[in-house]
């Protein structure tokens, strides 16, 4: 039973233990309680429900919904957060993909929608969704994360909230669309062009400036999300996809791309997504969603069922490329063990990590820490506080005291099995 010996403090087991023999593991780490006699259930004794034209989850999964910051549509931004604690794998269901809309979801008739590309180009062109759908398409997985995701962690005291409330403004999907490099080959690019200003057809006409190099590198006009047409909350009928870059820059309801020499210094780039530093200066043009991970199971609200076997699982991602390693600690960072990464591990996408854990019923503090292909390592809380500061007061969980927080998240489990958010 050597392979079931802990590899790090507080009961973390070798990530390969299951691969070597899951049944033996289960027998080794859990005692079997006597089962109830099995019986025919009502649903096994009559035909089931009508098959719907568009399927929805079981009525028993009603908890797996997004949380809404503005359910009555008051004149402000609306946020809908992904329930990471109830999901597994890496592809966020389309109905659960996080959404931020600054004035509701635009209700666009695709037959009337146009995408104009103009400015410092040789030939200004306009495209319909139908013509774009005829272009050679590419598919790729990519996470999208709001620059303000995880902002509650700037609080000077740990906010007691779920992983959905804290990290729910990040999701991952397979996006299919037309590479912008293809479209810019047809418009031509003036040698003076350095930026591309993207604008939405929503009522705020949201606009963001993107360096031309990023546009030509891996940007896409996304038409499909997890194989179906992009959802209204994701910009139907098309959105700009900038893999790994700040969510707000991935302009939804995309209607216009203007090539320029200068950035627009739009409201969202010169003011909103410009986090203030302790010096009083502010970052402008953050661009990258830096390497991050967090544990989704167990996390706040998770019902621990007493000592025994649990799998610790979570999500890691980096706007700089692939995740190369995730380490997990069950003793507040004193000792660490390497988690298994679910294949395939894809660049700028959610990567699911898992590690088996034998909980002895005593206090534990769970943490994860990720590394990316460029060698970036997820900072500790102390490191990010030293660089970026903390908020002057405890904010509401839905507030954004600053942005671009990517340090380690800690979940404390006490002897009765309740999970709390802590700083460790």
């Amino acid at each position, binding site marked *: 039973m050597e392979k079931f010996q802990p590899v790090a403090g507080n009961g973390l087991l070798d990530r390969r233990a299951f691969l070597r023999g899951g049944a033996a593991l289960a027998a080794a780490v859990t005692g079997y309680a006597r089962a109830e006699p099995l019986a025919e259930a009502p649903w096994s004794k009559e035909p089931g429900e009508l098959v719907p034209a568009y399927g929805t989850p079981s009525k028993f999964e009603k908890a797996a919904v997004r949380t809404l910051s503005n359910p009555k549509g008051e004149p402000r931004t609306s946020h809908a957060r992904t329930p990471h604690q109830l999901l597994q794998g890496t592809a966020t269901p389309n109905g659960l993909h996080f959404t931020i809309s600054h004035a509701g979801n635009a209700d666009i008739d695709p037959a009337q929608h146009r995408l104009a590309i103009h400015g410092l180009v040789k030939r200004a062109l306009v495209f319909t969704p139908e013509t774009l759908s005829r272009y050679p398409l590419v598919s790729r997985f990519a996470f999208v994360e709001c620059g303000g995701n995880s902002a509650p962690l700037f609080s000077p005291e740990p906010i007691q909230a779920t992983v959905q409330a804290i990290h729910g403004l990040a999701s991952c999907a397979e996006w299919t669309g037309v590479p912008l490099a293809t479209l*810019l080959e*047809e418009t031509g*690019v003036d040698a003076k062009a350095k930026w591309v200003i993207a604008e939405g057809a929503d*009522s*705020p006409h949201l606009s963001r400036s993107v360096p031309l190099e990023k546009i030509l590198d891996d940007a896409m006009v996304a038409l499909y999300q997890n194989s179906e047409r992009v959802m209204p909350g994701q910009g139907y009928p098309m959105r700009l996809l900038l893999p790994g870059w700040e969510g707000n820059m991935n302009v939804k309801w995309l209607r216009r791309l203007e090539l320029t020499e200068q950035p627009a210094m739009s409201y969202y780039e010169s003011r909103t997504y410009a986090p203030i530093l302790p010096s*009083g200066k502010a970052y402008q*043009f*953050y661009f*990258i969603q830096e390497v991050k991970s967090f544990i989704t199971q167990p996390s706040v609200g998770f019902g621990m069922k007493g000592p025994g076997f649990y799998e610790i699982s979570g999500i890691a991602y980096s706007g700089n490329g692939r995740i190369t390693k995730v380490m997990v600690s069950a003793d507040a960072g004193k000792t660490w063990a390497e988690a298994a990464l679910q294949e395939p591990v894809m660049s700028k996408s959610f990567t699911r990590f898992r590690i088996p854990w034998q909980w002895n019923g005593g206090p534990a503090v769970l943490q994860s820490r990720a590394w990316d292909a460029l060698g970036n390592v997820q900072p500790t809380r102390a490191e990010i506080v030293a660089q970026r500061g903390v908020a002057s007061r405890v904010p509401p969980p839905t507030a954004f005291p600053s942005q671009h927080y990517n340090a380690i998240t800690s979940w404390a489990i006490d002897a009765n099995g309740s999970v709390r958010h802590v700083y460790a």
Partner: protein
Amino acid sequence: MSTPRLVALLLACGTAHAAGPNLGQPLTHAELAAWNIHVLPDGTNLPKGTGTSAQGASVYAQKCAHCHGEAGKGAVSAALVGAPPIKSIDATKTIANFWPYPTTLFDFIRRSMPWQAPRSLSDDEVYALTAYILAQNKLIGENDVMNAETLPKVKMPNRDGFTPRFPNLMPPRSGRDL
């Protein structure tokens, strides 16, 4: 993205239409006019028109005060007047203590406001509201006229308060100094 790829693209575009699907339709400047609303920090693409703070005050009372409060003091939506010092990372960002460019004010009002009916204001009304808000913040004089010439020259207090997170990802500055 490699710079060679950009160079190759520029060279390819210099000759003839690329051998792609070519399904886009040519778009003239006139056809684009209704959408062509980006205003750049140096004033590029500011429209004709003009407005003063006094003119803006009446537009403001009619179309903005409901959400932003009397005289820009704030209500359900953010205050537009005031410059509390930035003493913490979660300090309130205001036009006067944070916004680096006056052109952003014109651009944002024109594209996004009023929240219930954006693109309903005339360019003169947008200039007038811009003048009103700048004057209320004492960033211009009460009688200053805002137009395509004067607006880009307004100096915002926090103009130099910013730094890029990753300077290597920033395109080189153009010849025009912002």
